[in-house]
């Protein structure tokens, strides 16, 4: 008896079931669940650290009371104005970046086919800065970011000549598109903001300083609208990773599924850039880390979102508390660390003979 359960457990390790009553049974992998739970715990810990560390931090014993409406004086100001919205935007934008990266990497079936590597994030940044600075009353920033993303993607798609199939071309075209987009952003910022170097760095690198609850609400709305659509798409997307013919045979309609995934990915990317700026390499790294930690196949959408939030909140915590530099834009930290990670990824891909 015990032996049979042993073997069955061994065989079932990849997919157990999460049962809710008798009607619902969601296939889950134990390792994924563990990683997800650990991710959420780390996220909460990082959030607490964000609120309580530093000179203006809310002391730990006061934190629960402050969170549930009892904040007073300086604590109230820190929570409601300074760190609360910043934390909300960091978590929301991080999750959206991570999810966006997971979708795009799943479509291109390559870690390098990620919105920040192929210039979409930079395009969104250009669109956002144009909307915020050139047409402040006409165009909402998220719409501008979305237009920029769409334009950047069209440009990348056309310049590769082979669509999204060839990762090498995709990335090089992305470098070109990112250069154009960044140059455009610089132009806009110099045209409107004149000589403001800090403002320029914020628009180019992305920053979480001086965020408002309005921006936190924007990214929350994007996640609430796009999240369920992604969930609907998840099954088909998993099938698509098995190859187009097989997916088509199983009724997953690969072309339409991929088109929908790209559209959702762009919406998420644009949403997060609109509230936090073109922060580099969260969408590259979060899905890859999810893949490494779970050692499984498939897009790992939920985990990518959780880990994206963890990464951005941790990066922002570093940006706020690292004594070495004085409150740099968080995008500079993610660019340094993400760039190094991208280098590691490249070498690994080359060892495998890909690219």
């Amino acid at each position: 008896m015990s032996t049979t359960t042993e073997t069955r457990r061994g065989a079932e390790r990849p997919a157990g079931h999460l049962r809710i009553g008798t009607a619902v049974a969601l296939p889950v992998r134990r390792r994924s669940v563990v990683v997800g739970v650990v991710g959420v715990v780390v996220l909460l810990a990082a959030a607490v650290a964000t609120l309580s560390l530093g000179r203006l931090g809310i002391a730990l014993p006061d934190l629960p009371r402050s969170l549930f409406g009892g904040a007073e004086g300086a604590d109230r100001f820190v929570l409601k104005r300074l760190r609360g919205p910043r934390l909300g935007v960091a978590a929301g934008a991080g999750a959206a970046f991570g999810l966006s990266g997971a979708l795009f990497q799943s479509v291109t079936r390559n870690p390098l086919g990620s919105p920040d590597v192929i210039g979409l994030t930079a395009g969104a940044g250009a669109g956002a800065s144009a909307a915020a600075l050139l047409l402040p009353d006409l165009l909402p920033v998220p719409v501008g970011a979305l237009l920029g993303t769409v334009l950047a993607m069209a440009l990348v798609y056309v310049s590769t000549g082979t669509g999204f199939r060839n990762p090498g071309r995709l990335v090089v075209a992305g470098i070109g598109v990112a250069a154009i987009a960044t140059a455009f952003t610089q132009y806009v910022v110099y045209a409107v903001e004149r000589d403001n170097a800090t403002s320029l760095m914020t628009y180019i690198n992305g920053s979480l300083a001086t965020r408002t609850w309005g921006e936190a609400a924007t990214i929350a709305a994007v996640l609430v609208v796009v999240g369920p659509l992604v969930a609907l798409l998840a099954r088909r997307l998993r099938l698509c990773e098995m190859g187009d013919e097989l997916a088509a045979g199983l009724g997953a309609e690969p072309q339409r599924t991929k088109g929908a995934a790209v559209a959702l990915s762009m919406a998420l990317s644009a949403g997060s850039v609109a509230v936090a700026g073109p922060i580099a390499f969260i969408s590259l790294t979060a899905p890859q880390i999810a893949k490494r930690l779970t050692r499984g196949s498939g897009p790992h959408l939920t985990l990518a979102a959780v880990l994206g939030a963890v990464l951005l909140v941790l990066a922002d915590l570093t940006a706020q508390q690292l004594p070495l530099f004085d409150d740099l834009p968080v995008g500079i930290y993610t660019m340094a660390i993400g760039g190094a990670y991208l280098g590691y990824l490249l070498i690994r891909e080359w060892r495998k003979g890909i690219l």
Partner: protein
Amino acid sequence: MTTTTRTRPGSAATLRGATARRLLVLAAGFALLLLSVAGSLMFGSNSTSLGDVVDVLTGDAGTYVTTVVESRYPRTVLGVLAGVCLAVAGTLMQGVTRNPLADPGLLGINAGASASVVAATAFLGATGRTDTMWWALPGALLAGLLVYALGSAGGSTGTSLVRLVLAGAVLTAVLTAFIQAVTLSKPQVFDSYRYWVVGSLAGRGFDVFFSVLPFALLGLVIAVLLAPGLNALALGDESATSLGSNPTVLRAGGLLAATLLSAAATAAVGPIAFVGLAVPHIVRACVGVDFRMQVAFSAVAGPGLLLLADVVGRVVLRPQELMVGVVTAFIGAPALLYAVRRMKGTA
């Protein structure tokens, strides 16, 4: 009838035709250069007419106009020098690596040079103009070696076209983060470097020009000496060897010259990308693949293009100006997209 008019390749008629074409292109190149030099002297926050410029050059103008135009001499001269350096460096790198995507900006060499200058300025207190050059050089060299090592890290499959560019992008990302972190956290140290960090011809004097000139000249001499060998190298390592060239020496010499030129350009005007990419592509389309021609024509077209970009940058946001590095990205990045489209195979 038809046989007599048809010219065979290599016949005297086609050679004469090719020479005429080259002369025409050369004339066009010099015209562009002259035009952009004139534009560089004319346009700025204070506009002056071409007549004023001529008057100043012949010494007939009033003090005010003379001061205005003369204040534009250094940046014009620097623009010419940097344009020559970047374009020839790009030509050399594309020849040596046989990679149409090579460019000192894209391969991270300019970023390496400027990171090294920024580090020396922030932590070692290097401030002099000549110091800049001496710090740019090791940074450029190190970055070049690193990108080459990273690009060939895969081993047996060799260095593909895309790998070097990706390695360059990675290095540029990390170094840019470093540069921005340092310059943002020490604003008072970098007040005079703020525009240099993005690539700008403004606010630098003749002293900068003279401090980088020897390195630029050395690089150019090496480039001219190597050009015939690069033609042989273009046929492949084995053919080059049987033609009496040493591929290893050619490669090392070419990369050394390219590094010297990129470091000189970066020390003078900051990290400017895409000039070294776009100019050789344009030149090849006009005069063909002979490297002796490519080097010569790049040296004429490069400064023309860079100065033109600078003039555009001065005009679009008057009385502010847009840094030349921003304008070249606008003009040059489409050249990268074009090159990607033309790439053959799966590389």
